[in-house]
């Protein structure tokens, strides 16, 4: 039970910092909106490509990508905060003061979810104002947001592992770039079966593809590959959890 005071303390401090600092909150909130506007607005003709058969429309199709992207980047940006905490010396003091250090990781993970909830709320309201169709029932919509939370946690654990190892904000590109590539190597603009060439091969082996396809199925009220998406989400959390906790041990050993 000693884990909760540490986790809640870290989560509260991190969230308060984010909310009180516009330069931290605004980019993570505005960038997904910007991507959503640019993709849903500028590329809507793509839904007329022969073979593009998505009943909920292109706005909903792009909403799922941007929702998952915002979740992943919510985790990565919280990882930047961990690196900054270690750079400023706060991380070391945190390690000294925490009776249960795994609570530190849990605290940052809770903060990442809290941060993403703000972004997701704004994004969902804007998308609905844009005329996004939601054909899924409430349970399916909850499942969509749960997939996003799993991705948020996985991205946070990945970034935390990097932050604990490097303990400097200079490692930010190492946290961000793989996540960015993984997201864009998925079927961003058209469904997987319309992709051809190297991107089709890469997307087929990309776990994000199945989370995206499941999300799009859920919002359209035609669930597909949901179990696979959840399994991949939990698998990524388990793998990156090991990565993060090993990183935490390295940070402890570094003193």
């Amino acid at each position: 039970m000693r884990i909760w005071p540490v986790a809640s303390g870290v989560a509260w401090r991190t969230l308060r910092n984010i909310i009180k600092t516009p330069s931290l909150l605004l980019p993570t909130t505005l960038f997904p909106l910007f991507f959503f506007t640019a993709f849903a607005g500028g590329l809507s003709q793509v839904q007329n490509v022969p073979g593009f058969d998505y009943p909920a429309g292109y706005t909903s199709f792009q909403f799922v990508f941007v929702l998952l992207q915002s979740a992943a980047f919510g985790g990565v940006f919280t990882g930047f905060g961990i690196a900054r905490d270690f750079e400023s010396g706060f991380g070391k003091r945190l390690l000294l003061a925490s009776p249960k250090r795994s609570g530190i990781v849990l605290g940052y993970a809770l903060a990442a979810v809290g941060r993403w909830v703000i972004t997701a709320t704004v994004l969902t309201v804007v998308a609905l104002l844009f005329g996004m169709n939601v054909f899924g029932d409430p349970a399916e919509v909850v499942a969509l947001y749960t997939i996003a939370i799993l991705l948020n946690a996985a991205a946070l654990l990945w970034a935390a592992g990097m932050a604990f190892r490097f303990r400097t904000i200079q490692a930010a590109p190492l946290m961000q770039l793989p996540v960015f590539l993984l997201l864009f190597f998925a079927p961003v603009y058209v469904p997987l079966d319309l992709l051809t060439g190297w991107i089709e091969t890469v997307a087929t082996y990309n776990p994000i593809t199945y989370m995206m396809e499941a999300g799009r199925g859920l919002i359209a009220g035609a669930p597909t590959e949901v179990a696979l998406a959840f399994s991949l989400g939990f698998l990524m959390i388990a793998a990156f959890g090991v990565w993060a906790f090993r990183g935490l041990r390295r940070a402890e050993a570094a003193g």
Partner: protein
Amino acid sequence: MRRREQARRPAPGAPTVSLAAVQIGAVASRSIRRTLRQPAMAIPPLVFPVALMLVNSAGLEPSTLLPGFPTDSFLAFALAVPFIQGALFATMGAGTELARDIQTGFLNRLSLTSLRGSALLLGHLAGVVVLGVGQAIFYIAIGLLVGVEFAAGAGGIVVLLVFAILVSFGFGALGAFLALRTGSGESVQAMFPLLFVFLFISSMNTPRDLIAVEWFRVLATLNPISYLIECVRSLIITGWDIQALSLGFGIAAVIAVVSLVLAAWALTRRMTRT
């Protein structure tokens, strides 16, 4: 050493323009060397636009099946984007470097020398233009490597390089204005998202007449970046499209002139302040 200094010093009675040329050359050479010495400054403007182009082209290739799409290769359609995106990157980089000169006091020290303000600005811009042309050659080479055929032929490539000079000069002057006005590299970097918005709300991924959402089409039509992209694109996929070329060169020239005037004004104010 003394002989070298004497060689650099203009001979008595020599025209002043040669001194200005020497000063511009020295500032330009410093600007280029400084960028090339920092891989973090030199590599992203080359690699990131190309990576984004390859990923977007692969994902959006089915768009070429839309009726009225002007080419059957999305890669050829998208090749225009790195030219403008790279110029935006270069703007930020050059502006940040100039802002650093202000923050470290280098500009203050320069103001104590005989260096003219115009030489400082033109030298800085000459450095940006050289890097811009280097970037353009890199993008053309990538295009040729991946099999894109330039509809306007070799002459079109030459025009493309001239356009790259004009665009780098214009955006470089814009970056210089931002740097001189704010005096802070962080403030210059903070403008990056705004420039990125201009890039995305344009015809970068879809021809304007195929954009179905009306407000987006209106914004893309009002956005000058659309015409810069369409100018480059016309040379790659159409051939010699006088309207696209006139609009592109005209808008790039306006950006260059306005930005240069603003940068010169900001430099005068900055020098007065120091």
